[in-house]
């Protein structure tokens, strides 16, 4: 096969030992074997008992030949097939598998296969492997539409239950910890908070500044037609403080800190670190989850304040430069427009968003099963669900504040 070309057909004479692949590197079939496999009808063959003589190596390179010459010409039903292997000098596991596949077909169709005159080296391969007698199982039937729908509803419900349990546990523990601040891990908490804050500081500031700028431009274009350019200040201030500030900050934090919470917790989970904490009697909730929750709920409202200020600054720049409103009246209009309630609802919303980001991050992190590659998937999932949560919660707040509470 691979290294030495098999001798031309010599059906009756066994090859001397040294022709057999004793050399280690003769086992693999690379480089490509120049010797093809041929199959021909032997003398004394008839329709009931076919005798086919194979010549040439039966290995990974010639399995295609075998497939073409043997598999495709197999008897359709009962009968007997004899394969004469006397001129097959070498075989490998691919060739062996091809013979198993042939046997499998014979079982289905109900004919018999007999191997004959296998050389010792070939025989060694054939006796080396065991195969399960049962045919390979058919691919699992894919679930029908109803089944899939049911399964996804059931999954959704159980996920909601799991999330609620986790959320309640961590939230209650956090409240408890705040009531007994001595036991809180302040160093971890402050480190987390400063990390989250400093990482998000620049990008939150830049993006909300640009959003404020854009808002002012867009509204100015409309309002100028009515000679109401000063209302740009009012509009920018209210939409930044009540809506855009909390929303944009939360989405950025979800992408940064939410993802990092998930990947950190998921890595701990995969590395059995959470199990190790459990058996050491250290509470994962108190030690890991609570500091993260409190840290993020402190950080996000602060970042939101920053966002509000920079957004208003963006509007102010447009107002003074593009709309020729004097700086002082613009600021006065801004301050007049805002009441404390606007700031309060904005900050309250941002704290709720932060709560959601932390818990969704923790939930996806803890829920990881399997190996390292699951960490990435969980992280992506976490960011998507967190942003989804933020938008839903924001709509709910709009209804609550404007419709219900007036």
């Amino acid at each position, binding site marked *: 096969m691979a290294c030495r070309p098999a001798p031309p057909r010599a059906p009756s004479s066994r090859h001397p030992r040294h022709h057999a692949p004793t050399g280690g590197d003769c086992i*693999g079939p690379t480089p490509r074997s120049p010797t093809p496999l041929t199959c021909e009808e032997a003398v004394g063959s008839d329709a009931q008992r076919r005798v086919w003589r194979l010549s040439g190596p039966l290995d990974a390179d010639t399995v295609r030949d075998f497939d073409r010459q043997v598999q495709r010409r197999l008897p359709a039903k009962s009968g007997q097939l004899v394969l004469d292997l006397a001129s097959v000098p070498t075989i490998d596991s*691919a060739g062996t598998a091809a013979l*198993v596949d042939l046997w499998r077909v014979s079982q289905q169709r109900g004919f018999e296969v007999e191997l004959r005159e296998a050389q010792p080296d070939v025989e060694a391969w054939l006796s080396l492997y*065991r195969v*399960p007698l049962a045919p390979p199982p058919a691919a699992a039937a894919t679930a029908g539409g109803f089944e899939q729908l049911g399964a996804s509803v059931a999954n959704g419900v159980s996920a909601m239950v799991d999330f609620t349990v986790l959320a309640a546990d961590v939230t209650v523990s956090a409240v408890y910890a705040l009531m007994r601040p001595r036991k809180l891990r302040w160093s971890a908490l402050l480190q987390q908070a400063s990390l989250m804050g400093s990482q998000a500081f620049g990008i939150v500031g830049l993006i909300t500044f640009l959003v404020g700028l854009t808002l002012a431009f867009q509204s100015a274009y409309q309002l100028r037609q009515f000679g109401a350019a000063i209302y740009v200040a009012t509009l920018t201030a209210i939409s930044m403080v009540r809506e855009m500030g909390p929303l944009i900050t939360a989405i950025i934090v979800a992408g940064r800190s939410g993802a990092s919470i998930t990947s950190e917790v998921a890595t701990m989970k995969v590395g059995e670190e959470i199990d190790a904490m459990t058996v050491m009697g250290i509470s994962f909730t108190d030690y890991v989850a609570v500091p993260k929750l409190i840290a993020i709920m402190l950080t996000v409202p602060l970042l939101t304040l920053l966002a509000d200020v920079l957004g208003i600054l963006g509007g102010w720049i447009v107002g003074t430069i593009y709309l020729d409103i004097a700086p002082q009246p613009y600021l006065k209009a801004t301050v007049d427009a805002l009441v404390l309630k606007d700031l309060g609802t904005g900050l309250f919303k941002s704290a709720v968003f932060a709560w959601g980001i932390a818990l969704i991050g923790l939930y996806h992190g803890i829920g990881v099963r399997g190996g390292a590659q699951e960490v990435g998937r969980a992280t992506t999932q976490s960011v998507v669900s967190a942003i989804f949560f933020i938008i839903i919660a924001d709509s709910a707040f709009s209804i609550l504040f404007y419709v219900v509470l007036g």
Partner: protein
Amino acid sequence: MRVRGLVVRYGTNTVLDGIDATVERGEIRVILGGSGSGKSTLLRGMLGLAPVVAGSVEMLGENVNELDDDGRQAVMRRTGVLFQNGALFGSLTVAENIALPLREHRDLPEGTIRELVRMKLAQVSLSHAEHRYPAELSGGMRKRAALARALALDPPLLFCDEPSAGLDPVTSTELDQLILLLRDRLHMTVVVVTHELASIEAIADSLIMVGGGKVIAEGPMAQVRGAGIKAVDDFFARRSHTATADDRTVSALFTAGVTEAARSTNQGGG
């Protein structure tokens, strides 16, 4: 397989310092040594996975250092490697893991691939786990699946990194039997890195003992063990020979005759 003057360095940390070693065709050669002795690094150096600074590796009659990428790949295709933790692809089932090299490097009909995969799985007694994902397997099962994958292309040369680490004695013995079978029936050359004495005694034709980045002893099993080299004798007698003069027991710190106590600790240590 021949290694000449192999030097492996991570940054300034020289892990292997001029290793010479030979592996004969059709033998099982065990690389042994204590933890941190560089035996796994030697394996990685042979495979070109560690930063080789100097020296040459000759594998299957080819000098690996002088080959281009294609040539190197051709050699690697004829080499099977069982990594310490299996290194199965987590996104594929066990059967797909084993079929991967077959699909990539061979042109085989589907039926043949299917039967080939089942043959290899039966060989490592893992037929029941065909459609499971690596994450759903135990450590031992994962290792056996990885061995099946390493054997998928019938490599003439097989490397095993700690094949029995983390396995129960029964599975470990089965694995040893399988390695012996591969050598006897398929004339495979096997390089095994291990520190399991039972496994070494069961399978090794010859040994390479590594310590401190150097080859301490090399040769047929009986010859190495009979040579009276202290590190080898200590290893087989399960004695520590790594205790240094710098560490001593805490109680020795508080004893008057510190040197005396330290000496006795080092002799009896392990």
